[in-house]
């Protein structure tokens, strides 16, 4: 068991280092042509007329008329059109494609397309939301919050806001589609091959066996390649079907930033009733998410935000409600953390604000309300597994020298205003409630070939997060064969069963556990001769109770937990924030590989620090104002803090060798830790991320 944590060298690394790995932009099929997207310049309008320049010989114009089946991208529903028909709902909405051999000609063509619109009144604001703009609306209650609020000694109420976040994976999105032998094959950069396949089936209205989806080496994703690749795949596939040639549709950076999904901006209000013992008697929480023009995955993102909104605390009387709202802006979607980072920024800042209002030390105040094994969750489910947060809090205090350093808050250290802050957080592992059982129904396959190599056949992808290493280790250990005998290629839907999407921190835990079971069976049947195929399907653990209609029960099978401390220095003149150190202690069950887990944590923290500070993205009248790497700044090697990590083993019985979710949790905890440190440095409340220096200057003047 202990060997599983020992790091091994990643097998995908040498080809990536040498530049030999082929990403979608590096692939050229024979006779391949290129496509370029023609997009809306209006936030909301009727399309009156489209005037095209002459389509040169060898070039094709493709629009909604060319979609063989349904002109809708199958996500939760199919209301997101493959191509706009007579109206557009956001700037950048795809209207058509031009496809042909020379990319210069395509660019020239797109610039000469003349579209006449009759503009309509767009909506951009999350205030004063009329019912027809609400995509999703949920609410649930625990205990008797109304009664508890009437009895409360005092009520504390604040609103918190978070901004867009752009994934900014280094590899822009792209797909190549070809139509041969009556079949569509799509190659590309993606997290979820079967999502793409389902979207193709729906839009073409052809039988399932006429589609094949193959993942190519994927240059980062972070949720950005969860649902959006279906759209690019459909565009490329429709173009390939119409032209009969392989079609490459690869976005440039500007197009990727302006026109693909990003993290939902949020507004979260917390109203908290305090009892005579300075404990929380009740909370009323409302979450509003900006979904952009189409619903996409917003309903599920909202659910995760709501299930996280009470944080790591046991609140007896609780009402949580929320809505996702349509605006005439680029649709938002999946992004590492999936609604939880927004919620944890809200709850962690709010708990700190409550503590300060009551004159208590924030960390002590939080500890008094912590969930523990057996606690009732926000959805009245049970915490089934041991919670080691008290040990983790003690650990991080020692690691960071928290108590001593706290006294320096607000003082000048090396010319900067010093601050230290902390955050407590969890991440629900895997799909919500019974989603794994009812929707995903994951299936994995191991194939021991005649040559005794063992193939891992699953639909989950390597996108940098390391499953081609960790999952091989799982199978190696379970089947008791050396790593060198295990093969795990990029998934091809013609070869792999649907083990579900590569999302929700589920791969190591859910898929890994199924592979462990398959590997153990392989070991027990090792004497059998010839080829051997072993399949395992997900079975929901008995202890999970969940009602998806009322949101009652166990929202997640289990949770990963974390504690962060952040140290910041703020320039007294410019208010520029320098995040100097982040300490993190995590319970992710069991780390399947020390190096890979370290990489996940450091990378996730970096994205969290970026979102909290320098990653500013705003829309102006529906147009994304920061549309390149020059305008939208992600952390460079000089912006990032020193990161000090530790882990507490707390194995989960239904995760691979005890593994729980690890990929998302680092992004959940870092932003509130940084914001809390900034607040403790400056002495006035922080309600919003990203924290902009100019707003700090303004707040400081108002505070004076």
């Amino acid at each position, binding site marked *: 068991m202990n060997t599983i944590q020992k*790091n091994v*060298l*990643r097998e*995908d*690394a*040498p*080809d*990536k*280092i*040498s*530049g*030999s*790995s*082929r*990403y979608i*932009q*590096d692939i050229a099929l024979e006779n391949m042509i290129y496509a370029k997207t023609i997009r809306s310049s209006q936030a909301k309008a009727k399309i009156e007329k489209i005037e095209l320049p002459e389509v040169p010989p060898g070039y094709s114009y493709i629009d909604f008329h060319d979609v063989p089946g349904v002109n809708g991208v199958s996500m939760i529903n199919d209301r997101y059109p493959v191509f706009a028909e007579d109206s557009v709902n956001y700037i950048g909405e795809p209207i058509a494609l031009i496809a042909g051999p020379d990319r210069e000609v395509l660019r020239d063509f797109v610039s000469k397309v003349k579209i006449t619109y009759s503009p309509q009144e767009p909506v951009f604001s999350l205030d004063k939301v009329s019912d027809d703009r609400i995509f999703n609306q949920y609410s649930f209650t625990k205990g008797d919050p109304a009664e508890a609020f009437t009895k409360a000694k005092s009520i504390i109420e604040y609103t918190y806001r978070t901004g867009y976040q752009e*994934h*900014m*994976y*280094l*590899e*822009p999105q792209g797909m190549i589609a070809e139509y041969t032998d009556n079949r569509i094959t799509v190659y590309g950069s993606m997290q979820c091959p079967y999502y793409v396949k389902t979207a193709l089936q729906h839009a073409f209205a052809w039988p399932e066996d006429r589609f094949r989806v193959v993942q190519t*080496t*994927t*240059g*980062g*994703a*972070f949720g950005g390649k969860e649902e959006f690749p279906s759209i690019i795949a459909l565009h490329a596939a429709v173009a390939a079907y119409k032209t009969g040639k392989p079609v490459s549709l690869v976005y*440039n*950076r*500007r197009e990727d930033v302006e026109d693909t999904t990003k993290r939902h901006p949020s507004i979260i209000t917390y109203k908290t009733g305090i009892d005579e013992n300075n404990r929380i008697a009740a909370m009323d929480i409302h979450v509003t998410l900006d979904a952009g023009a189409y619903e996409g995955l917003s309903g599920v993102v909202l659910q995760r935000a709501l299930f996280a909104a009470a944080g790591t605390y046991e609140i007896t009387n609780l009402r949580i409600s929320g809505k996702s709202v349509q605006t005439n802006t680029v649709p938002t979607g999946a992004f590492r953390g999936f609604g939880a980072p927004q919620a944890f920024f809200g709850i962690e800042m709010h708990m700190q604000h409550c503590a300060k209002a009551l004159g208590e030390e924030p960390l002590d105040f939080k500890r008094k309300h912590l969930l523990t094994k057996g606690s009732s969750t926000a959805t009245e489910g049970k915490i089934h597994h041991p919670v080691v947060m008290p040990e983790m809090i003690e650990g991080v205090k020692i690691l960071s020298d928290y108590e001593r350093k706290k006294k320096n808050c607000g003082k000048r250290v090396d010319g900067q205003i010093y601050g230290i802050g902390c955050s407590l957080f969890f991440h629900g592992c895997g799909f919500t409630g019974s989603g794994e059982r009812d929707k995903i129904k994951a299936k994995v396959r191991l194939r021991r070939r005649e040559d005794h190599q063992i193939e891992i056949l699953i639909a989950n992808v390597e*996108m*940098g*997060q*390391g499953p081609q290493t960790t999952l091989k280790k799982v199978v190696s250990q379970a089947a008791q064969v050396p790593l060198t005998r295990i093969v795990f290629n990029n998934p091809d839907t013609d070869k792999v069963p649907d083990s579900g999407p590569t999302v929700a921190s589920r791969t190591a835990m859910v898929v890994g556990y199924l592979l462990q079971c398959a590997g153990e069976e392989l070991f027990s049947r090792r004497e059998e001769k010839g080829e051997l195929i072993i399949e395992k399907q997900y079975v929901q653990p008995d202890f999970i109770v969940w009602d998806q209609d009322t949101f009652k029960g166990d929202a997640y099978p289990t949770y990963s937990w974390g504690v962060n401390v952040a140290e910041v220095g703020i320039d007294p003149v410019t208010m520029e924030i320098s995040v100097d150190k982040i300490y993190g202690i995590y319970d992710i069950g069991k780390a399947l590989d020390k*190096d*890979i887990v*370290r*990489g996940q944590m*450091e*990378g*996730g*923290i*970096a*994205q969290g620090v970026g979102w909290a500070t320098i990653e500013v993205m705003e829309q102006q009248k529906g147009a994304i104002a920061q549309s*390149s*790497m*020059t305008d939208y700044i*992600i*952390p*460079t*090697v*000089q912006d*990032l803090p*020193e*990161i000090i990590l530790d882990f507490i083993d707390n194995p989960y019985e239904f995760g691979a060798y005890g593994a729980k979710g690890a990929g998302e949790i680092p992004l959940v905890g870092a932003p509130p830790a940084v914001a809390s440190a900034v607040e403790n440095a400056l002495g006035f409340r922080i309600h919003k991320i990203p924290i902009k220096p100019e707003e700090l200057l303004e707040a400081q003047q108002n505070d004076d």
Partner: protein
Amino acid sequence: MTIKFSLNGKEISIDTDPGRRLLDVLRDDFHLTGVKEGCGEGECGACSVFLNGKLVPSCLVLVGSISGGKIQTIEGFRNTERYAVLSQAFHEAGAVQCGFCTPGFVMAAEALLRENPDPDEKEIRRGISGNLCRCTGYAMIVEGIQKAAAVLNREGDNGRI
């Protein structure tokens, strides 16, 4: 226009529009796809190549301007002994996740170590600050470069294995 230059040690003569980006010439005409296009604006460093020994983002270089120059891409550099050391060090340090930025980082690391064979951490961070990575948080890349520097220095001032 005819443009002559040296590419990974080979003398090349091409007839092309001098206004094309070097990046496109390398990728489309010579299939040197280790040179990645991440941003097209000189921000990310994924398309870094050596032009006359100096690290440049090939997306900002017009091919007309390199006449008579020497270009080395990752495909050329990867045949060297110094590359073998850097590659091994990146691998062992766990510096690679999605890998899209990695060839650019290797080139930036080589540029740094040529100039400063024994950089401290601060100098490494300054040296690679023209390259972006969204996966790792950079610490393991910095450690990879430290490892490589240590090996190269142990093997002698000229970096021979």
